[in-house]
């Protein structure tokens, strides 16, 4: 028997169902803006952007695609979660290409985790958008 929590609700807003997911991935918190959760959007934007920026300030290694190293590929997948922030970091060559300081190792983790947290936030925005979460 399906419980009430498992029953999908009607879409909260009409239009493209994945817009909050894609927008939330591209810009941290933007998916929540689309679902009109202003404070959540602001807090997510501040938390994820600050984490990413502090990571770069700690001389984080920003992973590139196609290095051939499996660990680098996982790091790239994490970094990519930050959306536009990652592309800006790559375009302007922010961060470092190799880890040379102890704090750079922390910073690398900050950047990867900021991307992973943004994935979680984008999925949450999608759930709000389709009415799975209130």
């Amino acid at each position: 028997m399906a419980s009430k929590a498992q029953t999908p609700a009607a879409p909260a807003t009409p239009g493209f169902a994945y817009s909050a997911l894609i927008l939330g991935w591209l810009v941290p918190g933007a998916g929540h803006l689309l679902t009109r959760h202003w404070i959540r959007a602001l807090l997510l934007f501040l938390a994820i952007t600050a984490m990413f920026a502090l990571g770069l300030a700690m001389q984080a290694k920003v992973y590139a695609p196609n290095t051939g190293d499996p660990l680098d590929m996982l790091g790239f997948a994490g970094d990519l979660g930050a959306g536009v922030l990652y592309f800006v970091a790559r375009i302007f060559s922010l961060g470092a290409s190799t880890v040379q300081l102890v704090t750079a190792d922390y910073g690398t983790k900050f950047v990867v985790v900021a991307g992973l947290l943004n994935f979680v936030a984008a999925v949450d925005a999608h759930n709000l958008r389709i009415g799975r979460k209130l």
Partner: protein
Amino acid sequence: MTFTPSHFTAVLLFATFASVVFAITQRSTPRAMAKYGVYCWVLFVGSVVAASWLMYFIRK
């Protein structure tokens, strides 16, 4: 601009940012979010402090 925090400062920053995201995404009401955010933060920082003491005694 470079930022060189101590290990503990990095832990506090990491715990704060991760707890904010966890709270917002894993709970539905503002009150539940606040409680869960504090819970996550305490677990992050508490586990680091506990692990630090454990390593201190192993080293001795």
